[in-house]
């Protein structure tokens, strides 16, 4: 007696799954875009010559990178409103947690990227009379950022997979919708097969786009692929 697959209940609920996918993509895209400036700000703070800025920021970034994202999310959603007079919606809490996660990673990559630009570039910039700030803005940063783009794009894929934690706090992302439908139709096998395929299609497309950007940068001589 084998299992009889029946995809019709899932296909009937396809519009709900696609709505969920839309929510997943929106959450991931926003967290990625917000994480960039926040991460860069954290990196610059860490590179600051003033220890009173660099040290606490460094501690915070290390703490964020060493605690699981789900724990951070639960704390933001369930615990924070008890300490401060703030009420976060599931979307708000998930966006905050994923942005912070992304920013912590971005700050480390950014810091590494800046440090990887050769000292001679700094010396050359100063030799033609630029201040530190001008050198950073016009010479170092443009080079560093080009090297970091492929890494950031791979990060986007990771963020997409990590976005599933939002389903635990009632945010209607793809996984949450899938659980709803699986439990209402009693067809978890079919539902999660279709859900996995949806994630696969999106992640494969993003990975392919990442590869193309990497190849383009390599051709222009700026990527990390030589």
């Amino acid at each position: 007696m084998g299992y009889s697959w029946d995809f019709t209940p899932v296909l009937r609920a396809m519009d709900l799954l696609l709505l969920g996918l839309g929510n997943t993509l929106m959450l991931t895209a926003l967290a990625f875009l917000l994480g960039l400036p926040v991460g860069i700000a954290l990196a610059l703070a860490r590179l600051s010559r003033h220890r009173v800025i660099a040290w606490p920021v460094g501690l915070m970034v290390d703490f964020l990178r060493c605690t699981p994202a789900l724990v951070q999310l639960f704390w933001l959603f369930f615990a924070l409103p008890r300490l401060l007079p703030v009420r976060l919606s599931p979307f708000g809490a998930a966006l905050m947690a994923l942005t912070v996660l992304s920013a912590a990673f971005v700050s480390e990559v950014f810091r590494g990227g800046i440090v990887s630009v050769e000292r001679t570039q700094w010396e050359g910039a100063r030799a033609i009379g630029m201040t530190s700030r001008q050198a950073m803005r016009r010479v170092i940063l443009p080079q560093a950022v080009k090297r970091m783009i492929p890494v950031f794009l791979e990060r986007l894929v990771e963020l997409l997979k990590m976005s599933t934690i939002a389903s635990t706090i009632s945010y209607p992302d793809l996984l949450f919708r899938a659980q709803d439908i699986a439990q209402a139709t009693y067809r978890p096998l079919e539902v999660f097969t279709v859900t996995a395929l949806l994630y696969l299609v999106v992640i494969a497309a993003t990975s392919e786009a990442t590869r193309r950007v990497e190849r383009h940068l390599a051709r222009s001589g700026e990527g990390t692929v030589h």
Partner: protein
Amino acid sequence: MTEHHSGQTIPRCLARTARIVAAVLLILALATTGLRADSKSTWDMIKERGTLRIGVVQAEPYAFSDPITKQWTGMAPSYGRALAEALGVKPEFVEVTWGTAVAALQANKIDLMPNLSVTPQRATAVEYSNAPLSYSALALLVHQATTVTTWDELDKPETRIAVSQGSSEDAYVTQRLKKAQIFRFGSYSEDLAAFQNGTVTAVALYHPSLVVLASKVDDAKIVVPKPVRSTFSDTAVRREPDKTLRDWLTTTNIYFYNTGASQQWYEQFLLARGIDPKTSPSILKEQQ
């Protein structure tokens, strides 16, 4: 067309095609072998194995697992132990959630699921013994200052209610309160946390469970909205040709209900959690 990329020299189109073919073959293999249900009946398997696998949800008073001793107590464990004793086998408790209980039965992870609220939808996927063990009303945990008495009053966008995802109260509240904001969490403790931090203004649960929850919170009271939504829960089993287990459970449930055992297990649990049973509604229909 070959391309040298990070050291690979396999033709790129070929590698990609091979991967897709492998994936399709894997899916076909899974589809044809699938989940092969045992041709033996659950009754025979229980006797052979010497254990009775009972589904339990971390949901007081139905079941509760002590985090330190890992012992299960509550209505379902008490019931499960009595059943196992009558069968001459050992009880084994398998944790599930209300939403995944049916799937656990279908996937042969558990032999029976006690305290599963009866709904026609669930009855299409599993079989009930048709001898309910408890009757309860759907109630709300709200703040002391809240004045709400009917379901209609709740059906507006400002209402924020928490339920357990996939539970019968989830199904009811979703179809009854179309305008309200419904938050679906994985467990009762998350529902309560959302209530305590202001994310939701009410938790919808059956009255016995709310009595336990309310004992842990300040500024909370229980309201039974009208018209009263009364349901009953029963033991669910896998649908199979042999009905021995299901029919046996019909008899055991009638026995436990009419001898007052199911009410006793419920009261024993409340006492163990420091709650006076007189402050909690009876689960027997005749006493409500």
